[in-house]
């Protein structure tokens, strides 16, 4: 029986729920450890004039205060966020200005609190807008997509369209808030750096931190045995890693450093605010004649991050005339980075809201509108899809949800103080794979040792790698001992882009298959076993050019309180076509978790910008709202059996992100249906509805 496809429980589940699993801040040997605490800038731009280091050094238990004056030199690796404590210039509010190192956590924190920092503040600009005077076109958008695309004559087609819409949709700054904030334990052993880090990729951390300190990546040993979530915010090192390494270097001791929840909003990366101007034109049959998606977002002055907001629009629907653009403005803000489905998530909120508005304007059912615009081939890449079953997802979702009984009229279903509505939206996410390596050893006792520098950020990838190896070796999963998340193991790609399982599993499969061939030659197994190492660079490079994407459809019911404008979501249904599902138990929790995060994006999450003080003012869980259990009622997830032979040998498309894509649009579409109010500026909080709700009395 195949191990792939079995609902195995997480290998480390018991360790985690009993607290036995060690995270980056929980490594043992406490007596040797010092504690670092980050001191953050209270101005937006300007210079540090002085730091009252002496007063703090005089406090009992304080070991050292690191500032730009005494920090070791770091190489310029092109990411100004990582060049911490190198000069007195401040580029955003909350930027690290010092690290206080003390014998205890409490001492470090209190000393950091009383450290006096004086500044000379400059002018600042923290507000992104689609009219900003300093907008520019970046060379590429994340990670390496074309900035603009133009096919045909969009403006002519829009002018000639029978039905058209032209609206802008905006999403606010959104913050990655994994349960485990960023944390690092650092220790130098001669010229080598030992790190235990909460990272989504210990290979990339080793390389980047090595480069910063001017040492080879091999001289940096990174472990990340257990990681409490990331959502992209740990996809590359953030300032916590160089700060901890600097603190360890200057003291010659082992140092632990963690962010508080409040620090996460300025030091971990976040989803940029976005504005998408959407113009759609259709003929009398509802066939799209033109699609235009102009996207605007922000970056910092330290590092260019260009959210690929309009990328998904390039692959979703057929239309002969098409245009996508990305414009960026560099502001005095922390650098936005990846957050679950960067690009697709805000972009599909815009596209799928616009499609819903077009459906209403054309008098066509939203599912039917999408069906009529189903492309034969990828409309911009002009290559076939490896597989595409958006229609299957919509049909199955409609069946599960009861879409057929829907009355399309807006604000037509009122039940007492509740306005009830339904909406749907499509989901998509690219199926990617990156080169990785894996090592597997057959031992004389019949067991196998598998090693790969993959990371398990809570998704269950450790468990899935063992399933994949079991099938490739044709043994029971229990016969395999697996090690991951150690940079001494074969280099593997980051746990991001929904590509971990495909990338790592490909290398694991290859190594295991090669080992089986070796074993079949009948040789006896020596005491230290027979080892095979494999990498997939050649296989990844040889992939034929196809459009590889997972698709999905989400359906939402909302009840809007006519007395308050509060939105309740009694049920969500998501159906996905994402290739082969490796482990239904783990997959279900990925889909449900991402849909829940999409629900939060739709209704709750917003970084509230203070344009004077220059930061996002709500930076804790009391004021930055994510869904509570009471908000999440009934989320039903299914997937279609989809065989796609143009992917990795396992045949999966990646499932970590697609669930958040489209969820917010489905909610917004349902709210529009319930109330007749179209909210084009997330989140849909009561203030966006209250003044325009239908009268109750």
């Amino acid at each position: 029986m195949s191990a792939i496809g079995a609902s195995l429980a997480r290998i480390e589940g018991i360790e985690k729920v009993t607290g036995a699993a060690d995270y980056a801040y929980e490594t043992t040997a406490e007596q040797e450890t010092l504690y670092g605490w980050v001191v953050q800038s209270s101005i937006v731009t300007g210079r540090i004039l002085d730091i009252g280091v002496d007063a703090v050094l005089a406090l009992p238990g304080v070991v050292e205060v690191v500032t730009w004056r005494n920090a070791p030199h770091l190489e310029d690796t092109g990411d100004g966020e990582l060049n911490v404590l190198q000069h007195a210039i401040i580029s955003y509010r909350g930027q690290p200005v010092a690290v206080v190192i003390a014998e205890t956590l409490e001492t470090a924190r209190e000393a950091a609190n009383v450290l006096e920092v004086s500044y000379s503040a400059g002018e600042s600009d923290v507000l992104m807008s689609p009219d900003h005077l300093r907008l520019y076109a970046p060379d590429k958008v994340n990670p390496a997509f074309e900035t603009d695309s133009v096919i045909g004559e969009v403006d002519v087609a829009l002018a000639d369209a029978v039905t058209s819409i032209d609206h802008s949709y905006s999403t606010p700054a959104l913050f990655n808030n994994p349960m485990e904030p960023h944390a690092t334990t650092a220790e130098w052993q001669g010229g080598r750096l030992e790190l235990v880090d909460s990272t989504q990729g210990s290979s990339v951390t080793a390389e980047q931190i090595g480069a910063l300190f001017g040492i080879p990546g091999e001289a940096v040993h990174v472990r990340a045995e257990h990681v409490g979530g990331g959502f992209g915010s740990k996809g590359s090192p953030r300032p916590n890693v160089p700060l901890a390494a600097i603190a360890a270097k200057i003291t010659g001791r082992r140092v632990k450093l963690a962010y508080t929840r409040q620090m996460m909003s300025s030091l971990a990366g976040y989803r940029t605010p976005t504005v998408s101007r959407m113009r759609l034109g259709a003929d009398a049959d509802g066939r799209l004649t033109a699609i235009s998606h102009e996207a605007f977002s922000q970056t910092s002055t330290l590092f260019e991050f260009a959210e690929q907001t309009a990328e998904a629009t390039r692959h979703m629907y057929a239309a002969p005339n098409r245009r996508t653009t990305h414009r960026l403005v560099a502001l005095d803000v922390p650098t936005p980075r990846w957050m679950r489905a960067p690009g697709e998530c805000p972009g599909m909120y815009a596209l799928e809201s616009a499609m819903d508005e077009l459906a209403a304007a054309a008098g066509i059912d939203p599912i039917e509108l999408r069906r009529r615009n189903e492309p034969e081939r990828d409309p911009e890449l002009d290559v076939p899809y490896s597989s595409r079953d958006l229609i299957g997802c919509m049909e199955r979702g409609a069946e599960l949800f009861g879409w057929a009984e829907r009355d399309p009229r807006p604000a037509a279903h009122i039940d007492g103080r509740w306005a009830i509505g339904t909406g749907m939206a499509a989901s998509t996410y690219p199926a990617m794979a990156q080169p990785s390596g894996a090592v597997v050893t057959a031992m004389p006792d019949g067991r196998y040792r598998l090693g790969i520098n993959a990371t398990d950020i809570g998704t269950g990838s450790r468990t899935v790698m063992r399933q994949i190896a079991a099938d490739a070796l044709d043994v029971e999963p229990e016969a395999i001992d697996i090690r991951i998340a150690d940079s001494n193991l074969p280099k593997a790609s980051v746990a991001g882009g929904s590509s971990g399982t495909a990338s790592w599993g490909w290398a694991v499969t290859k190594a295991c298959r090669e080992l089986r061939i070796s074993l079949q030659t009948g040789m006896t197994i020596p005491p230290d076993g027979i080892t095979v190492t494999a990498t997939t660079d050649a296989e990844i490079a040889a992939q034929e050019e196809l459009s590889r994407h997972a698709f999905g459809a989400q359906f939402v019911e909302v009840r809007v309180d006519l007395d308050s404008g509060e939105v309740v979501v009694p049920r969500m249904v998501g159906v996905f076509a994402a290739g082969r599902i490796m482990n239904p138990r783990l997959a279900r929790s990925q889909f449900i978790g991402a849909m829940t995060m999409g629900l939060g994006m739709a209704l709750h999450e917003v970084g509230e910008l203070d344009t004077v003080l220059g930061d996002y003012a709500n930076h804790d869980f009391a004021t930055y709202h994510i869904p509570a259990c009471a908000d999440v009622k009934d989320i039903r997830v299914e997937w279609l059996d989809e065989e796609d032979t143009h992917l990795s040998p396992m045949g999966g498309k990646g499932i970590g992100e697609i669930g958040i894509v489209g969820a917010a649009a489905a909610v917004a579409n349902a709210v529009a249906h319930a109330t007749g109010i179209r909210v084009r500026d997330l989140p849909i909080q009561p203030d966006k509805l209250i003044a325009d709700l239908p009268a109750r009395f």
Partner: protein
Amino acid sequence: MKPFEYERADDVAGAVATLERDPDAKYLAGGTNLVDLMRLRVETPSRLVDVNRLDLGGIVVEADGAVRIGAAVRNSDLAADPVIRERYPVLSRALLSAASGQLRNMASVGGNLLQRTRCVYFMDSSKPCNKREPGSGCPAIVGVSRELAILGASEHCIATHPGDMAVALTALDAIVHFETAAGPDSLPMSGFHRLPGDDPSRDTNLPPGALITSVEVPPLSFGGRSTYRKARDRRSYAFALASVAAALDVEDGIIRDLRIAVGAVSHKPWRATVAEELLRGSPATPDRFEAAIRAELDIARPTEQNAFKIPLVTRLVVGVLDELAHP
């Protein structure tokens, strides 16, 4: 966190005497707000006087029909109390709408009355705030003010009292009993919290060092016909955008008496006396409800970000009164 002394009080007089000697000391009850604020360095008491062992519990019905609630009674216990549920459902519902189950299990009645604003500037000690640091300024007025006051604010502070329980107690005309070095004293809920004026550092009119000992809820013949509704950004564990505590006495479609208090709109729970006056003796109809609450909100001075609270409070009050008029 700034280092501090800790001691456990054995009796009320001793606790009060300690704060008399050390004005920078604070009482510690459930700690659900104070300890957070200490971690954030918003509160830096010299000493914590733990009052959890004092005999301040119990919910007692007195001879005159009033209910006396000990200051140490936990929010969960008060919400579940059969007498409270029957006679003052508004109070039980207000409590249950607040915080989370875990916090309600810890939070005390006395401490809940004294919880401080959740204005994001007050909570961030790297920023100016006239309440936390008098004279440093109020960035909220031109900044993030969506959740803040529309009634009774000043040029120095637009913070709100964030609680739910106090809104219900205000509607119920409750009386707060406390002890100071000078002996026992009391304040009506209407005079307990204060408007910020030119001294937003003071949330209440409680004398310095006073220890709340109990809250007395007077009898209310129509208290059984009361409720609490709270509008918020998520379904649980969120402070109110606006809330309404109301009780209604209707006979033959005419309002004989009523109580309305509005939460999250001011530095104190806002007793809607203008609306009450207009509605007493009037038909219990939605248009009358709406006209009355509009008159109450005439003096509202919202910011751009919280102007939505005017239609929100209007709709909530009309909806709640209509619900009470048609049980």
